[in-house]
């Protein structure tokens, strides 16, 4: 299945060098969970702070059991804030 992974802020360093607009499209195994896809990017766990699937927050404990579906958008940020 095809999913879109978006890595923002300092996590953009973990994207393939040819990536543009903080995103990469990739093919994942059917039923792959959030954590499995994230592991492909070898990011330190403490940096994968804010994880959204189609805009919905996935808490750390649910990432190993939350399956992705065709066309899902997985977006990740390190600890950040604004105002």
């Amino acid at each position, binding site marked *: 299945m095809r999913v879109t992974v*978006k890595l*923002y*802020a*300092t996590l*953009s360093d973990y994207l393939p060098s040819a990536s543009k*607009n*903080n995103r990469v499209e990739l093919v994942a195994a059917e039923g792959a969970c959030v954590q499995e896809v994230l592991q492909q990017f070898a990011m330190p766990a*403490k940096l994968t*702070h*804010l994880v*959204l699937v*189609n*805009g*919905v*927050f996935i*808490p750390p404990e649910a990432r190993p059991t939350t399956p992705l579906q065709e066309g899902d*958008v997985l*977006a990740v*940020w*390190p*600890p*950040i*804030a*604004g*105002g």
Partner: protein
Amino acid sequence: MGWNRKVLRVNLSAGTCVPEPLNMAWANDYLGSRGLASKYLVEETDPKVDPLSPDNKMIMATGPLTGTMASTGGRYTVVTKGALTNAIACSNSGGYFGAEMKFAGWDMIIFEGKSPKPVYLYLENDQAELRDAGHLWGKTCWETEETIKASHQDPLIRVSSIGSAGENAVLFACIVNDLHRAAGRSGVGAVMGSKNLKAVAIRGTQGVSGIKDFPAFMAATTAAKKVLADNAVTGQGLPKYGTQVLMNVINEMGALPTRNHRDVQFEEAGKISAEAMHEKRPTDGKAHLVTNAACFGCTIACGRISKIDETHFSVKNSPKYWGANGGLEYEAAWALGAANGVGDLEALQYANLLCNEHGMDPISFGATVGAAMELYDLGILTKEQIGLDAQFGSAEALCKLVEMTAHGEGFGKELGQGSARMCAKYGRPELSMSVKSQEFPAYDSRGIQGIGLAYATSNRGACHLRGYTVASEVLGIPVKTDPLATDGKPELVKAFQDATGVFDSAGICVFTSFAWTLADVQPQLQAACEGDWSMDKLNEVGERIWNMERQYNLAAGMTARDDDLPPRLKTEPAKTGPAKGLVNGIDKMKPEYYKVRGWDAAGVPEKATLERLGL
């Protein structure tokens, strides 16, 4: 003791500057800055006063931690009745001006009356005098600061001033200090202009003395700074990317108000984001962002300093804008960008620079442009009326409208009245995305439910900094809550509102609360100030301030009907994103909030609540 115990009372009608002792009984109940200045305003003015009349007062105030070793201890506030809102206003600014006021030996300056001619206040330690500002009237905030420093032969003078917006009663005029920091919201600059007060210039050389327990204070501030440094948000995220990092976050969540809240996601959000500010431009090979910056005493340094593209149409013939300058921060980038459908980063920075230069709140300005663009889209406003094509997404229109508003030209005069008055004039009041006539900040409350309640009940009109539930609903600080749920939000909003009152009144930046809780602030206050500043006391002070502000607004004529959101957010569901199909649940949350507050069904504090808080 934290406080200097000294207030300067400036009667602009009589031309007098008279020192008086700070009311320490009130300081004990309201701490400082926002809380204490609001207490003075409540005691000394009629809540029904016309904000732009001489009978309104304007107070510049510091807190007990302003100017000290406490991290971010550079804040000051401007308290008055807001020109935009007709509600109590407390607008908070960083930079260096607040600390300088403390170094000059003052806690607070109370301005009353109206000067018969333009003046500025010059304050050098104990010496205070009103000086003629005829030569400054008409100058920008940037020119005013430069001129005052040059005339006094002192580059270390700190200046807060108004630009043409404040002089011309633009209702969202702000007061700018240190070139690009501002007491930005609610129209405090219009109040200052109505008093013929162009600027306040301060030079203080006395430092801060009288910290109650200095060893304990140094230990407490050092420990608290370590908390900020060790925290991933305040130690790394904010310095690196600033507040602008939220642009993509909020867009992904479907809570980025777009085209006057018609949409909740902006297709060009990435082009105006923090990440875009780091990318090299094709035109000159340079990144928009130059560096980050800090206000006085700040160990976070979230501020953005950027350099605009010299080839951009907005500035190619205006070299004065080519240098490194303040911005873009998230709120300005959103209001000037997504709110109008404009995805041109350089145009947003140009508009932001003009807001700083001429003294306008970019949130209210940008959102008012968004409302005008919707009126134009609907055919209610025409090209002839506005003087240009004002379609959503037009960077050219944005840049022209900011010039027209700053200079009070043509349709700019109508924009300068804010969206509520403008939309009412053209028969579509519901298209103003505001509460108490103040425009929304950068979060759509269909996608972040709690912030809708915070907007609706904010004592100074729609504002994210009166109860930043986004910290919890989006960022998980201090705990993650579901942004799409309404359950538990009344309690969450109250907790944020009361705690923020303490942060504001202490004289520190609310951004510390991404890492600090009140438990980190408490030891600093206890060591700096006389008296009991326990956690129980601080919680009570925060709640007391909120209820005092509420009482003022009720006495000014506001009712529960003013604690509401525009119909669009209650009846037009979000079209995309996680909140697709949802409206804001304000009608469910508001009665619960009133109960949590100890207010009756009409939003009036119960007698028992007032007695408990000593009001």
